[in-house]
């Protein structure tokens, strides 16, 4: 679906000409092995790079320019995928064809180039005032997680389930590391990202492929670098004990946030990965799934009750918002759904619905430029010729017996409940 052009060793351009959108989308992704320090430094770096640059030295100057360019969007973000940390730069501008006066595409390319290659340095260093301000922003972003009780409960469950591991690490690092970093650390992080990271550049829109490729070649003068080492097909972390841990924590709140952590040896690179996706769908991925039908519709115990499959970490999560006093009943009910699948209680209807919705999900994701970029960037690691149709064909071949077998490869490790102080 994307045309692939290797610009340098470790620097690849993926380009897709399409008339589907009224805008042109750019994304530049820097990838490196995830660790706490790098994540923290790069989260701040991402903020600093979008604040200002060598040409527009204040946030106001840069934002005014973007407004003038018909509200061109330019921002950066830090994220993680498996053991990889990513810094992404996104830009989106209106296709020149839709503008009554003048075009912006060339200016946008120039601005991306400036953002990447001419940061706002004074005497070879980042401005300490800006760095301190953005350190504060990242720290506040990390702290604000506490206010969202569902996300907080999920984070706590993961910390307990997989401490000191990529699965529970934040893509913004830790408050401690962010606090300790200096402008010198930031410069080092910038240089290492620019010169050592594996880079993928994406362009989606109504552009001339050849012309755009040449422009990117001349604007983005990245040096060659070795591609990131991919760990070979790897078994997910094995569980430590056979015991199921029960952890209850309290805060000032009303609802009980019930989060269950399951592990499975089947991870993203495992050949059974598509079977596990179907299994998760039957279990709790959708509104026809066992969890929704039983915990919500049959027992009226919850508004949400669903499962998700974190394939990169070999983990499955179930989350439900319940009355905390009904914890035992809810946990039993959730366990029963998995046991039923392990015993082969899976209907043709459930299989059909799950396959249809997974197919709908992936095809729909391709109806946005961002979706095309994100889905492809992930799946090209399995297959450079990845398409939605191929994935759908693999799902179609999954049988009830496969799902039953997969269900036996899922085991509960932890039950975590975050609830109000007055509850049991």
């Amino acid at each position, binding site marked *: 679906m994307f045309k692939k052009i290797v610009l340098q060793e470790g620097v690849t351009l993926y380009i897709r000409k399409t*008339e*589907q*959108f*009224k*805008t042109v989308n750019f994304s530049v992704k820097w990838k490196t092995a995830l660790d706490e320090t790098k994540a923290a430094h790069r989260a701040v770096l991402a903020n600093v790079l979008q604040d200002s640059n060598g040409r527009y030295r*204040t*946030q*106001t100057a840069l*934002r*005014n320019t973007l*407004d*003038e*360019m*018909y*509200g*061109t*969007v330019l921002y950066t973000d830090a994220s993680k995928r498996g053991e990889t940390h990513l810094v992404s730069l996104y830009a*989106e*501008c*209106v296709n020149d064809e*839709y503008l*009554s006066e003048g075009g912006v595409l060339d200016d946008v390319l120039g601005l991306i180039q400036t953002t990447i290659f001419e940061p706002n340095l004074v005497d070879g260093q980042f401005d300490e*005032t800006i760095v301190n*301000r953005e350190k*504060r*922003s990242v720290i*506040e*972003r990390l*702290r*604000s997680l*506490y*206010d*969202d009780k569902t996300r907080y409960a999920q984070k706590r469950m993961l910390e307990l389930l997989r401490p000191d591991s990529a699965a529970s690490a934040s893509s913004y690092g830790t408050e401690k590391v962010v606090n300790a970093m200096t402008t010198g650390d930031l410069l080092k992080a910038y240089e290492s990202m620019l010169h050592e990271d594996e880079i993928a550049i994406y362009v989606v829109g109504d552009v001339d492929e050849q012309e755009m490729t040449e422009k990117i070649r001349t604007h983005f003068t990245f040096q060659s670098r070795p591609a990131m080492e991919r760990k070979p097909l790897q078994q997910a972390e094995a569980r430590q004990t056979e015991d199921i841990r029960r952890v209850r924590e309290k*805060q*000032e*709140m*009303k*609802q009980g946030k019930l989060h269950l952590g399951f592990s499975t040896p089947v991870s993203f690179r495992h050949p059974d990965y598509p079977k596990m996706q179907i299994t998760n769908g039957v279990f709790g991925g959708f*509104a*026809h799934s066992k969890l929704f039908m039983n915990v*919500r*519709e049959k027992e*009226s115990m*919850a*508004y*949400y009750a669903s499962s998700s499959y974190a394939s990169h970490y070999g983990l499955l999560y179930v989350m439900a*918002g*319940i*009355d905390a006093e009904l914890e035992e009943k809810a946990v039993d009910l959730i366990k029963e759904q998995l046991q039923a699948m392990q015993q082969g209680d899976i209907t043709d209807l459930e299989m059909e*619905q*799950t396959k*249809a*919705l997974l*197919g*709908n999900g992936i*095809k*729909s994701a391709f*109806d*946005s*430029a961002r979706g095309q970029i994100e889905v492809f960037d992930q799946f090209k690691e399995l297959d450079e010729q990845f398409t939605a149709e191929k994935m759908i064909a693999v799902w179609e071949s999954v049988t009830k017996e496969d799902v039953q077998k997969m269900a036996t490869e899922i085991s509960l490790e932890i039950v975590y409940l975050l609830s109000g102080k007055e509850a049991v």
Partner: protein
Amino acid sequence: MEKIQFDHLQETLYKATLANGLNVYILPKRGYSKTFVTFTTNYGSIDRTFIPRGSEEEMTVPDGIAHFLEHKLFEKEDGDVFQKFSVHGASANAFTSFTRTAYLFSATDKLYENTEILLDFVQEPYFTEKTVDKEKGIIAQEITMYDDQPDWRLYFGTIENLYHEHPVKIDIAGTVESIQDITAEHLYECYETFYHPSNMALFVVGAVDPDEMMNFVKKNQDAKKFKEPAEIVRKFPDEKDTVAIAERTLAMDVSKPKLNIGMKCTKTDIEGEEMLIQELSSGLVLDILFGRSSDFYTKTYNEGLIDESFSYDFTMEKGFGFAMIGSDTEQPEALEAEIRKTIRGAVENWSITDVELDRMRKKKIGQFMRSLNSPEFIANQFTRYAFNKMNLFDVVPTLEKLTVQNLQDAFATFADESGYTVYSIVPAEPAQ
């Protein structure tokens, strides 16, 4: 079927009003594999006092009923409607707002099967006391979930402060107590009054053949019997221009205080072009005064008075409207003072010029073009605009003709300090 071309946007809209009064809109999008369909009634949480169809007397129904009705339409004698959508690969959902209830699906396959399920499930109500009672537990958990969300409490707390009487101050889902009073009979009464096709709109956007789809919908509707359209009589209390409560604070288990300033709009009995100008102008004023390129933003962000959670917004429907500006902040008083200073500055010494307006106009046009990539945006917004007698596709031409005077006039409708309120959430004392 009417065909309306928007050349500057390269979009074509197909429109028809069917014999039963239903407005059908179809917008094909090239290159898309999914089709997004919404079936929306002009009925939301604020429509709580009205004269039921076939009655003479006005009644007030329990709070949260429009939302409750939305939930209950999904359950039929033969089971859950989600099951049917799933079989045909459609991802279905619904939402209730202050003024609308929308039922929707998104599908990349079996468009007509899914459209039929959508039309039929919304038009074939099935409510019993048993199924109504069963839903109370689910909705109670939904309400409890929102109760624990500080940003929702901040938003709704601000609206409660702003209004004396208007039902926009009542939470869309009602309360755990108010929903206990809802009966199947209530649901049928509301359904009969507000779900007539003449009070509804169907919007289809994405991969679709307009002729085929229009015929399909027409056939489906022609095969059903509906009562004659009847005028809907809704009652709204008089509302003062001043706020009900000027200041309120709530303690929750949060890491950092949250501040929100609400400003009540006094010109809300409008619709059509007048509303479009009011809404776009108000948005532009806020962008100029509080957006990322503003002096306010630069100063407060540099000083640490606001963080990445900072946001502002202008909301308007017929009968109510307000601007909100808020952020997580360690210094709520200082931030409040800065916001007030900025507003007061603009009131006393209006300094917005054509230069700023032109820049923001360009930004808004670009933002709108970007939004047109999203079938969800088109369907939801088009319907909201249509219910307010506006046309979504007039946004760019209207933006192009706005003047500084339009902005100043719009600003004056919510800039009076007697219409301000402040709502704060502060961290609860740590438990002993």
